[in-house]
């Protein structure tokens, strides 16, 4: 309980900074819309095929724009030795990591919602046919991206080649999660009936989130205390 309370304080701090500066939010939102625009030149945006591959397009956009958010998560603590101050505070490393992931999660969700809205307009796709299921998948997959992003953002924060290493490490790790999110989102947006196959992928997302969050909590000290 104490860990969660501390994590909430860290997330609240990050979100307050983000709401004041809006640096990640604006950049990630603009980047997401730019990718959606670029993708419209790759194929016919009004073709029926778009509905079948909506999940792929959307999660590609979310994963890339998410990188802008989790890249900032820990690097914003570098000036004025803020990271050292956070580590020296009574916060537990696990709560710091989970709090950072919480901040990324809450920042990424509105970017996803705006992208989904814009996607619906640009590509003439009715994405709201299964709102509750879609929201559930977005929450599960976004938490997965956020926790992995926070862990590897922390892991690479002091590296000389941080900008190069982060995508090289993070995207292969996210692939199982992204495949699951894409498969279920494709079915939901195409209005296919939800079968055992979609539930299997939803369970994969849930297990991925639990395993990654547990590993992040256990390894938080190793990752943060360098």
């Amino acid at each position, binding site marked *: 309980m104490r860990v969660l309370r501390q994590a909430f304080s860290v997330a609240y701090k990050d979100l307050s900074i983000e709401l004041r500066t809006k640096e990640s939010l604006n950049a990630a939102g603009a980047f997401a819309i730019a990718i959606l625009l670029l993708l419209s030149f790759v194929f016919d945006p009004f073709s029926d095929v778009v509905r079948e591959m909506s999940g792929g397009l959307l999660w590609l956009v979310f994963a890339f724009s998410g990188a802008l958010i989790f890249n900032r998560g820990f690097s914003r603590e570098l000036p004025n030795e803020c990271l050292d101050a956070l580590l020296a505070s009574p916060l537990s490393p696990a709560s710091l990591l989970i709090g950072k992931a919480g901040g990324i999660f809450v920042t990424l969700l509105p970017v996803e919602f705006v992208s989904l809205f814009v996607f619906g307009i640009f590509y003439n796709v009715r994405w709201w046919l299964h709102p509750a299921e879609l929201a559930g998948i977005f929450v599960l997959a976004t938490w997965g991206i956020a926790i992995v992003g926070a862990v590897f953002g922390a*892991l690479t924060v002091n590296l000389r080649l941080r900008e190069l*290493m982060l995508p090289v490490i993070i995207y*292969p*790790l996210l692939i*199982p999660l992204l495949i699951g999110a894409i498969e279920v989102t494709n079915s939901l947006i195409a209005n296919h009936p939800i079968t055992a196959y979609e539930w*299997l992928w939803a369970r994969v997302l849930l297990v991925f989130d639990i395993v990654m969050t547990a*590993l992040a909590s256990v*390894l938080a000290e*190793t990752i943060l205390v360098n």
Partner: protein
Amino acid sequence: MRERLSIVLAAIAALLLANNLHAMFLSLPDEAMQGAIYRILFFHAPAAMVGMIGYFVALTLSIMYLSFGDFKYDSLAASVIEVALAFSLVNIVTGSIWARIIWGIWWTWDYRLTSALVCILIFSGYLMLRRAIDEPTQRARLSSALCIFGCVDVVIVWKSIEWFRNQHPGPVLDFRTGGGRMDPAMSHVFYMNFLALLLVATVLVLIRTRQESTAREIDSLRRLAHAA
């Protein structure tokens, strides 16, 4: 002592491999459905098994490094991952050759193949991360953490043929199916070749670990010289 052990293990591996090649090409008949190409599976699947064992050994070594802080576990983990990566590549290449003949394509995006490729990408990232960090303690701690996270994908690779419908064949080995999917003569050669490849991997790890320890020693001497 370690050199003598490497030589003995290499000699046993060479003898086993020669015996297995003789059995594969001169004793065993062609497979009824696949013809002669099935023989590549005597290298394809054992290479995958050796690779996966390597990743799990590296996982154990990474946990041991984080628990005890001894650099020898870190060196050993890095060596094991390099060798496991090489065996995973053998697995992918031999699998592609088999697929070209049997399926008519080099590659298909099913879950087994995709997760195996992702596994290679993750552990290539591990090696890149090690090269990107100069400070030995930081390098060891962070690469151990990455190894632990990366092993989640190894479990997905292992179980993917049971969890999902794939173009890749399902489990055929006795210890996963309870027997009956493979002729005992073929099964015997398969396990003997697995043993041979495991010995080759062990020899490579021993050689690589010695190189890694020497590199660490040179690095510490260099640091000492700079400090003086």
